[in-house]
């Protein structure tokens, strides 16, 4: 994925669409937008930095996982098998980007009231959308949408077309060309994780 920070307006549509698509419990954000100021007056500006799992090629979480719950698919997407995860949280300790969440409880949106229709419906879902207590979860690049040939929800919903999703291993793909032409960079490349998420500088 490439995220163009010149185009990102920090609207958080990606955050909301991710929640809607993946039925994440209250308090869990597989996608977040970190907003910060750079520069000094009169040249200061606000930068919006969307943060998701980097789906690293050298993912430390995959190596650290003792059960094999965290694993990398053939297409490079890093996913968690909730049925294998024992909740040791070691993957959280080794992730340098802080993009994993441990469910000590499943937060309700309105704790004093019954579950909403959205929350009730989510209990019938399978796979990564069936959130469980005692396991670790994270962004899946909407793997089930990708399997159907669709884009992740955050890419689809981006109002400024700041996000591009594609095959990094294909040098002729739109995303590979975008990375080359716009000099997109990874976060903390010196760590050797080789993230699959690139950013075009603001």
């Amino acid at each position, binding site marked *: 994925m490439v995220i163009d*920070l010149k185009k990102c307006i920090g609207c958080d549509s990606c955050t909301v669409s991710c929640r809607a698509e993946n039925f994440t419990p209250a308090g869990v954000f597989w996608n977040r937008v*970190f907003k*910060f*100021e*750079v*520069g000094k007056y009169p040249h200061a500006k606000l*930068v919006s*930095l969307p*943060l998701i799992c980097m789906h690293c090629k050298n993912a*430390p979480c*995959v*190596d*650290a*996982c*003792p*059960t*094999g*719950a965290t694993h990398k698919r053939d297409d490079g997407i890093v996913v968690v098998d909730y049925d*294998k*995860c*024992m*909740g*040791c*949280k*070691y993957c*959280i*300790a*080794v*992730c*340098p*980007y*802080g*993009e*994993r*969440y*441990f*469910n*000590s409880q499943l937060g309700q949106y309105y704790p004093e009231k019954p579950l909403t229709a959205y929350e009730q419906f989510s209990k019938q879902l399978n796979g990564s959308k069936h959130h469980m*207590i*005692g*396991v*670790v979860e994270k962004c899946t690049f909407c793997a089930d949408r990708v399997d159907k040939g669709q884009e992740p929800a955050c890419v689809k919903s981006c109002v400024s077309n700041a996000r591009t999703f594609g095959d990094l291993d294909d040098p002729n793909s739109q995303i590979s060309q975008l990375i080359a032409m716009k000099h997109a960079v990874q*976060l*903390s490349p010196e*760590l050797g994780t080789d993230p699959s998420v690139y*950013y075009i*500088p*603001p």
Partner: protein
Amino acid sequence: MRTGLWLGIPLVIAGALFLIWDLGEPTRFTKALSRPRTSWISRGSWILILLLAVSVALFGLWIWPFTMLETLPNLIMALEGLIVIFAFGTMVYTGLLLGASKPIPFWSMPTLPILFTVSATAAGLKTSSLVLMVSSLMQGTPIPEILGILSRLVVVFIAIEIGVLVLHLWGTRQTETGEFSSNRLLSGELALQFWAGYVALGLAIPAIADVAVSSVPIGFEAMLVLIAATLGLIGGLLLRLIVVYAGAKAPVPAFGGLYIIPENM
């Protein structure tokens, strides 16, 4: 040896049960054995299981009908050797497990596994002294001379532990996040546990007690060994607790900003 196994086997089992209890899904703990090639938790799980297996095997030699195997000194020597290897592995792997967390500077210093190993060795020596003392008191035999040697060894290891601790704290202060973590110990929210708990109770008092062991009457000797062992073990536990709580992730630099990762992520 037998007293050591009487004490050691239940303690290792208790420690393993605490590890299992801390899991989000404790019923799945057997899955932890799946990835010893890459995961330190898997490796540690295997080390603990093998340590227990070999310890129980040696203990089993004193139970009929296996007592006949006691006449095989090579077998006993092999089992004792394996226990030493796996016990050393148990001491070392926890520091390596934390050290593999590269985003946490306070944990990823190479001095941490050394600190944990030295601390564990000191704790083991103190416990061995206690076991020897209790054995001789129960059997009504004179206090073995080796107790004095063990006490002096404990003092040496405590001195080494202090040296490695100072080196570790100095090393972690080379980065901002590492400095933040070490300040938590030295003057922050963990200062009481660090200074009063670990340094005073866990290091200073046991060291003084072990120095005094050889110069007091026999009745007081037992009391000092008990104090040194008990406080030393508490100090070892506190060291591991405060190291875990002090650890903080380095922020992610991004386009002129600094994304500070929340504590629970």
